[in-house]
């Protein structure tokens, strides 16, 4: 493809110039011509074919035209005079339908045949239309040229609602325009994050909240199944999950495809785009190609910046001074007024990549830069994009950022200012009345005074002068002040929830309630998580904290669950699962036993074992078989035993007064009742209960999280026991005289633990941390037992929903099914695929 071409060929037109024919009167085609003219205005006789019936305009400005911020005249790049003055023949409104490379000519729809010496293909891209029923209905439009904008404006004039399919750059700009034009807009996006190719989850969350605030409805993870019509016109959209959205217009903005049909039919080498070398020459040396229709070094671009560089290289080559194009690093800005968003480079992370994240919840800002081998390779900015061009520049130049690394995230002002490159120095340079903590209005002078007055850790600063005690976004500044004022004597604070945050478990739990945080990405943004989507420590913890804080409101996030809780069974070392059905209070009957025996035989379970919690554990079930096993057990009246969860496990009982000569009270009955009350509740860690009928304590109630020992005069309640690695006998909590009181106290204690313990903290270490007296005091406050018990019972309404039954009915089937199965034939290595 790199063979040099001899332009001095015979058969040139009368003026001795070569004939250059351009297909595509768009941004790249015209720019290429401009570049050639600038180098050698007399070299070519230029003819440009354009399918659109107009001159070349700035396509990217169609968004402001749609939004009513610009008129078409304002976005024209090349006026009719330009074509005329440069002797260019513009054939507009006439599409080229074929290229004949034999005779070196192109044929247009009108029948016009135009011979060429050099051909330039600049056909751009075609909008991708998802192949769903109804895609051809009247009212389904794309967003590519002025005619599309006119169609949208006509629809907006009639009012009503619009559905935009695709939450990428183009779709969101269309949605924004239609919204400003008074339509009710719903954006349907397949992926969970808007603009997922440019944004990470955190920035996508901020963008989404802002668009929703402006009245748009955003549906993510939504798959369009069908476009509904009425009398040949669009009437609505149906999603895969059955949701229907009525609308008067559907804008399809799901992506673009390089327009390669002409080139392909002409036999040029085409993969995703038309293949070109570094001089924009195709597999035929007489044919050049440029713009979105090409594939260069494996990449197809969808932005204008690369076009300029391609056109430069093309013109250099076509005028005999080849330089070459080496590919582009691109950056994106969303053109929606009032939303500042910038993204550039590679931010998918990867081997050796390091993320530096800074979040400012007060200003709704998010910054993330990605560094690899001391080079900046990507950046995502939301809310404050002032430093976008600076980052982009560092990225393109591949500059070594090691010297400014610490201050990089603070932006150019901090990082490039010599002495200011050290963030501590930057803080030192602030004046005494500079505000450090915006939430509580604390100045630098006040913080320094607090530190000099003895506050030598972040925590003591927070409690003395309130700086960094609220949203925490100034934590870094306060830490710098501590370091500056005390030198090396800063005390490290209490343990943070995980390495993704500077907040402790208690802080996070408190702030979730105070700020009414109800989603994991929201917590991460508001509390300045330093990673884009957390880690395997904080995700499950946050999921639990939210579940506990907002019962009935928060939707459990399966992907933040450990395997056992996600699969509702216990994973074993060979990857199979064990299944424990619930047996209330450890009681069972022939029907249940028969069902268990049947399951064991039917699924060939290699082992059944009686557990320490008085249940039967069936081993060796494959994940695919779990729903069927559960259906069989459900049929015999058994539900999930939650032997897999950070949740209420079992209530263990002894034989009880009905049979035992020492038994007092109806201890077994009480155990069954307590299990009915507590089953299904998610907890910070596993939680075991036992009820013994006499102080001989056959149910081992004194090594349980909550233990009841029945005596003639009532019920002794014990808490905080543990029979695991570190055995701990319970502490005596109190004695009550009725069953009701015992049940209430059990509910109240459980709820206190659910609300205050750290995730993965059993009751034993929790009580050792806070002290038994604290627990007693909390429960002794006026009305406390009733309040906690009521909160527990309220939450239980939503928790006591047998997960096995839901799975057996087909919920989350993907978690159990294989994607497919590959069956390679032993002889031929060509694999067959069987859909599961």
């Amino acid at each position, binding site marked *: 493809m790199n063979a040099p071409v001899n332009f001095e060929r015979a058969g040139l037109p009368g003026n001795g110039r070569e004939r250059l024919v351009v297909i595509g009167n768009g941004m790249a085609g015209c720019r290429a011509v401009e570049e050639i003219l600038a180098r050698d205005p007399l070299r070519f006789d230029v003819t440009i074919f354009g399918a659109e019936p107009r001159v070349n305009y700035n396509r990217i400005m169609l968004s402001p035209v749609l939004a009513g911020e610009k008129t078409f005249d304002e976005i024209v790049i090349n006026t009719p005079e330009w074509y005329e003055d440069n002797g260019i023949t513009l054939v507009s409104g006439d599409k080229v339908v074929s290229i004949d490379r034999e005779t070196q000519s192109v044929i247009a729809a009108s029948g016009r045949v135009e011979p060429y010496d050099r051909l330039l293909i600049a056909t751009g891209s075609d909008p991708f239309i998802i192949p769903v029923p109804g895609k051809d209905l009247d009212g389904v439009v794309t967003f590519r040229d002025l005619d599309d904008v006119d169609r949208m404006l006509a629809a907006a004039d009639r009012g009503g609602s619009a559905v935009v399919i695709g939450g990428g750059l183009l779709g969101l700009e269309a949605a924004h325009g239609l919204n400003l034009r008074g339509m009710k807009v719903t954006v349907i996006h397949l992926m969970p994050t808007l603009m997922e190719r440019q944004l990470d989850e955190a920035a996508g969350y901020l963008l989404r909240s802002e668009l929703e605030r402006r009245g748009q409805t955003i549906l993510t993870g939504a798959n369009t199944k069908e476009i509904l019509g009425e009398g040949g016109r669009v009437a609505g959209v149906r999603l895969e999950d059955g949701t229907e959205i009525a609308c008067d217009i559907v804008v399809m903005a799901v992506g673009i495809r390089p327009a390669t049909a002409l080139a392909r039919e002409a036999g040029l080498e085409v993969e995703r785009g038309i293949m070109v070398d570094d001089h924009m020459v195709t597999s035929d040396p007489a044919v050049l190609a440029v713009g979105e229709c090409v594939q260069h070094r494996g990449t197809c671009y969808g932005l204008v910046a690369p076009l300029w560089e391609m056109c430069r290289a093309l013109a250099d080559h076509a005028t005999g001074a080849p330089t070459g194009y080496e590919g582009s690093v691109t950056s994106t800005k969303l053109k929606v007024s009032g939303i500042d968003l910038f993204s550039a480079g590679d931010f*998918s992370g*990867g081997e050796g990549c390091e993320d530096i994240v800074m979040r400012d919840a007060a200003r709704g800002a998010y910054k993330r830069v990605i560094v690899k081998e001391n080079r900046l390779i990507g950046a995502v900015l939301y809310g404050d994009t002032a430093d976008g061009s600076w980052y982009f520049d560092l990225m393109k130049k591949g500059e070594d950022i090691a010297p400014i690394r610490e201050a990089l995230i603070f932006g150019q002002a901090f990082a490039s200012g010599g002495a200011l490159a050290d963030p501590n120095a930057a803080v030192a340079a602030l004046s005494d009345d500079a505000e450090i903590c915006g939430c509580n209005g604390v100045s630098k002078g006040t913080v320094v005074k607090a530190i000099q007055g003895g506050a030598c850790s972040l925590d003591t600063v927070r409690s003395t002068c309130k700086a960094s005690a609220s949203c925490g976004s100034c934590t870094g500044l306060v830490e710098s002040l501590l370091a500056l004022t005390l030198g090396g004597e800063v005390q490290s604070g209490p343990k943070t929830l995980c390495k993704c945050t500077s907040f402790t478990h208690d802080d996070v739990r408190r702030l979730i309630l105070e700020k009414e945080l109800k989603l994991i990405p929201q917590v991460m943004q508001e509390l300045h998580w330093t990673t884009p989507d957390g*880690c*395997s420590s904080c995700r*499950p913890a946050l999921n639990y904290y939210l579940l506990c804080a907002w019962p009935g409101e928060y939707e459990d996030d399966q992907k933040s669950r450990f395997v056992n809780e996600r699969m509702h069974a216990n994973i074993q070392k060979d990857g199979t699962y064990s299944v424990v059905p619930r047996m209330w209070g450890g009681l069972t009957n022939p029907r249940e036993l028969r069902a268990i025996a049947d399951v064991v035989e039917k699924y060939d379970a290699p082992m059944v074992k009686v557990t320490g919690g008085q249940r039967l554990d069936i081993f060796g079930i494959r994940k695919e078989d779990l729903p069927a096993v559960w259906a069989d057990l459900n049929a015999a009246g058994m539900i999930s035993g939650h032997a897999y969860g950070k949740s209420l496990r079992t209530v263990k009982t002894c034989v009880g007064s009905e049979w035992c000569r020492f038994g007092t009270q109806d201890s077994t009955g009480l155990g069954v009742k307590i299990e009915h009350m507590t089953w299904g509740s998610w907890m910070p860690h596993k939680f075991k209960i036992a009820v013994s009928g006499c102080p001989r304590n056959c149910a081992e109630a004194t090594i349980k999280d909550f233990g009841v020992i029945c005596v003639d005069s009532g019920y002794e309640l014990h808490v905080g026991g543990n029979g695991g690695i570190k055995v701990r006998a319970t502490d005596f909590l109190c004695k009550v005289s009725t069953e009701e009181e015992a049940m209430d106290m059990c509910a109240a204690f459980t709820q206190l633990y659910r609300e205050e313990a750290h995730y993965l903290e059993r009751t034993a270490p929790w009580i050792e941390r806070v002290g038994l007296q604290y627990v007693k005091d909390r429960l002794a406050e006026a009305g406390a037992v009733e309040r906690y018990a009521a909160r527990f019972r309220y939450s239980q309404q939503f928790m006591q929903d047998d997960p096995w039954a839901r799975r057996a009915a087909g919920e989350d089937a993907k978690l159990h099914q294989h*994607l497919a*199965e*590959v069956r*390679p034939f032993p002889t031929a290595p060509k*694999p067959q695929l069987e859909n599961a």
Partner: protein
Amino acid sequence: MMIGNWLDIGPVTQIEPGTARTLPVLGCEEIAVFHTMRGEFFALRNQCPHKQGPLSQGIVHGDVVTCPLHNWNISLRSGKALGDDEGCVPTIPLKVDAGRLYLLRSAVVTRAEAA
């Protein structure tokens, strides 16, 4: 031919972001196909380098999966164990085209021939 080298394993929508699904290969090792929250896809042998834990069942965060058995962190990109742990699980080249997932055929079946 490029096409012939890639095995079409179905549409991208089969795997929810932040999760993985499994692809058993008759006569050789099962493959786990991951979809990250960022929207990237990866395929790895469904076996932790530590004690063969099924990686498909781990929690996915960033481009890392935490093994469900003993919490090793495995890079989805390289298959390498991260942090202080050492080990590596084979990765299978994967590409996404027009909304469908493709695995490199030879990487899917080589082990079958070896077996």
